[in-house]
């Protein structure tokens, strides 16, 4: 598929960006916009929200094989709408695309899929849960018990997942503000999955186990006009505690950050802009550009001061929308593993 075609789909019409926060529940193109104090309705809200411009089911996992080798895995299904609402057949304004990746210590495999909504090649159904594009699927009786598959030309995986804790809501009970101007999304996670299964690699199948983290997010205006990308961290500490933190990079060199501390039992504390900081320590040349692959992350309120290091610095996703996404290790005041996503470095 042509890259230029997809640049359009992902980087929204400029009119939408320029508009910023409309604040009235819908924007000029008729899309719904996230409102504070949301009331989620499950399992229906695990399904798609076609009135919002963009939405994703975003799963990352830190894995280990029997020989101790660490792996990372990603499975993401994106939905984007040309216009709000749903229609049957080719008339559907919904466009689906998906990314899958496996990271090993010395290799990174990534691939993508695209599909039109309405005809049945891709979609999400909430109950029983079923998210699919082509033969890739995330499926189960509910979100707590899932089977996950994806494959590309030279890799694939087949995993089972079981949630060992509750859903976690970010920001104000799931209303996650993304800028000082008020851009926001609905955002919750299931960070407590135990995961096990088989990676299909060119060298042969590998049995792995580990932990996985699912993010659910939907919105119509996720970025402010002056924001160029983000660095997003999901960290699982050996203590059982977890941290989600991100900082949105603004064109003037400043950041907008937000974070959620998750206790081992699922209790969540959201922190406002500035509490969470992430500072690049060293850069690596990746696919022709410099990308920070080592970070110093701090959350003083939790006495957190850790060094985040990419497991494989070359975890570049050379897809229609290129970005960096890969497993990391955590050292310092806390130890653990996690995932790092960096956009805006193309």
């Amino acid at each position, binding site marked *: 598929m042509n890259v230029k075609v997809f640049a359009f789909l992902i980087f929204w019409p400029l009119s939408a960006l320029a508009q910023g926060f409309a604040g009235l529940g819908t924007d000029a193109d008729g899309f719904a916009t996230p409102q504070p104090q949301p009331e989620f309705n499950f399992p229906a809200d695990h399904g798609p929200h076609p009135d919002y411009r963009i939405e994703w089911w975003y799963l990352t996992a830190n894995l280990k094989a029997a020989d101790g080798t660490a792996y990372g895995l990603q499975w993401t299904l994106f939905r984007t709408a040309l216009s709000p609402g749903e229609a049957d057949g*080719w008339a559907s304004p919904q466009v689906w695309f998906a990314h899958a990746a496996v990271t090993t210590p010395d290799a990174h495999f990534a691939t993508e899929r695209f*599909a*039109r909504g309405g005809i049945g090649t891709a979609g999400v159904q909430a109950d029983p849960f079923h998210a699919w594009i082509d033969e890739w699927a995330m499926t189960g009786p509910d979100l707590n018990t899932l089977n996950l598959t994806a494959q590309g030309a030279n890799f694939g995986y087949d995993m089972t997942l079981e949630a060992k804790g509750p859903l976690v809501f970010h920001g104000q009970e799931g209303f996650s503000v993304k800028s000082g101007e008020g851009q926001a999304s609905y955002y919750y996670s299931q960070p407590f999955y135990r995961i096990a299964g088989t990676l299909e690699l060119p060298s042969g199948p590998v049995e792995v186990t580990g932990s996985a983290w699912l993010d659910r997010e939907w919105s119509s205006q996720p970025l402010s006009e002056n924001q160029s990308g983000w660095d997003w961290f999901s960290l699982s500490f050996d203590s059982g505690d977890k941290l989600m933190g991100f900082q949105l990079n603004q064109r003037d060199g400043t950041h907008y950050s937000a974070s959620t501390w998750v206790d081992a039992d699922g209790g969540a504390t959201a922190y406002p802009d500035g509490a969470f900081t992430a500072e690049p320590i060293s850069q690596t040349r990746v696919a022709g550009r410099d990308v920070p692959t080592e970070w110093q992350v701090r959350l003083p309120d939790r006495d957190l001061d850790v060094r985040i290091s990419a497991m494989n610095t070359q975890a570049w996703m050379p897809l229609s929308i290129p970005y960096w996404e890969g497993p990391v290790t955590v050292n310092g005041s806390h130890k653990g593993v996690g995932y790092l996503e960096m956009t805006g470095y193309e």
Partner: protein
Amino acid sequence: MNRACLAALLSHWIRNPLQLFAFLAGLALATGLWSGVQAINAEARASYDAAAATLGDGQFDQIVPATGDAISQEDFVTLRRAGWLVSPVLEGQINGVRILGFDPLSSPIGFGVSEETQTGDLSAFLNGDQLFANAETAGRFQTGIRVVINPAVASGIAVGEIGMVQRLLNRSYLSRLFVQPDQPLQRPALADIAPHLRLKAASQTADVGELTDSFHLNLTAFGLLSFAVGIFIVYSTIGLAFEQRRGMVRTLRALGISLPRLITLMFIEVLLLALVGACLGIFLGYIVAAMLLPDVAVTLRGLYGADVAGTLQFRASWWGSGMAIAILGSLAAAAAKLWQIASMPILASAQPRAWAMRSGRARGVQAILAATSLLSAAGLAWFGTGLMAGFALLGCFLIGAALTVPLLMHPFLAFAAGAARTPVARWFWADTRQQLPGLGLALMALMLAISANVGVSTMVSSFRMTFVAFLDQRLAPELYVEVANAAQANAIETQLPDSGIVVLPLLAVDAQIAKQPTRLFGVRVGPTYRENWVFLDAEPDAWDRVSAGTAAVANEQLARRASLWVGDSVALGEELTVTLAAIVADYGNPRGQLVVGEALFRRLHPEVAPRQFGLRTDDPASLRNTLVSDLGLADSAITDQSALKAISLQVFDRTFTVTAALNVLTLIVAGFAMLMSLLTLADLRVPQLAPVWALGITRLKLGQLELLRTGVFAVMVCIIALPVGLGMAWVLLAIINVEAFGWRLPMFLFPGEYFRLFLLSLLAAIAAASWPSVRLMRLPPARLLKVFANER
């Protein structure tokens, strides 16, 4: 110094405008025909490429229905969800324009429109309210959907979003699926999930290019022939100019211009002239191509269904090749002369030598070359296979034949000289023989032009005679109708026979038979078929057995490609085999066809309903009315025989308009070559003629003898050209045609036409000779006298 010297060199051409004209015109004609032909080819290729890019043909494997022309949308979803990365295409026709629906998200080729336009238009494309077509195509159809002009879309095609095209064509299914080149690790076999679909390799879909190759090769061959003749003119002009300037070269060197500098300047001089000639030629080529292209486009569409844009673009590919070949050709023509000058001592005689006389040894070399070429031709005729071998055979044959021209003339002229009684006759024949080396190339060119004319006119006329007879056979039913739906088909089948109309349903399906892509027809055997079809070869009860379902009739294309003939067995299905009872000539159709009885066809393909009917009636006009008013058929769905025949004949006439036009141009070039050779020789021959004149033969007489000499040459050339032309026709009809199209044409002879052609050639030769002769007659005696005065 360089400027003064170059100006001196160029002044020669200004003082000798005839030579300048010959050089530039020769080069322009050569380049013009060559680049014109290349322009046509480039335009056609660009159209094929655009079509391939738009259609994905030849680039991607495709999944097509095993039978019929529809794939359900469910099949597409099933395949995708099983891991097959496929993309849907829907194809239909509106007002003769192919409408293609794509899904740009899954398509490996975007949406068939050039990359530059993709980004901005994608949302509009997905919205499904636009069709994309080039300007020419956009004017040809009306759908109510806005048409966006995009020159990158192939001619005759409009593309749009697949859902919109489904609505436009009122269909819910798909036509075929592209298979992405990169497929995931695991996916089930196609036969397991969709046994009714078939995978077609990319190589099997690139039909148009291959089919049309022969046509373009044909054009190229003519272009090359013309170029060879044109370069000959250039060669002889350069020869003359350089011979005449031997004195000037000596003077320039004596005055202090070193040899390397002089050679360099002369090289630059030729280069400058070649540039001018090439530019003129490319301009000429553009005109030739622009005039011929519409005919070529019609031909290609008619013969191969290949859509070629009717408008010409100025592409670097053809004008660049024209420029390169013109310059290289001129330099090659000049190289020998430059070499001569380089090896000429500064104090050598400045007298222009008479045209370099070839020794007997040179004739021996030529004889060996001729024999080698002719032997190669014979070898290729015997052992060669494939179209390229056919053209190589034609090339070897023509080169060999051309080389023999002076060889055949030489002994004849020697004999004539020996047999001559009077001194003047003796001198005439001896002198004629002496002209042979100088005129050799021009005579060869004339011979090639005449034989090409004989060959091509034989082919055209044979083709037309055969084809008209064929049309009468195959278009016997008075009306053909194409129904829109099953109800109309039913009405035709049930209602029309009551009014005495014979209904001949045409059942057809694409199939693989004997490993060849074939159109399988089911016909209702009756008098129409029995009386009108003329077989190339058949068993006596062929139609009875076809009707009974035990035999089939194959067209010649299928038979030749699958190496089948009457009596052989053909497998139609896993357990069904029929005998080939007859082979039918099927001119102008590139595809294989197999005809079986209606009953057998319906048993094999119960899902296929007849869409076309042939109707026999005494009153086509009233039947037409009935069909339109009573059965609700669209008037455009009814074709009457005479119209169809007229269209078919027109297509074929246009095909050969192109060839014939090139032929005439070749003859003109050859005549011009003759003229230039004679003019060249005329100047050099003054010293040879002066003694004869001094001995008492008048200038008038000398001029007449010159004319007579040319006549003698022309007659001899014609005599040689006839068998060569017929040989060429045989190669075209029996070898190249079979290789290119899959059928062989019977060869008819047209003596009247040849005679007319010979008269024309003779006339052309005499016309070419008349000016030099008149010039000779009017030559001032002073110039003849000067010959003696100049002698040291």
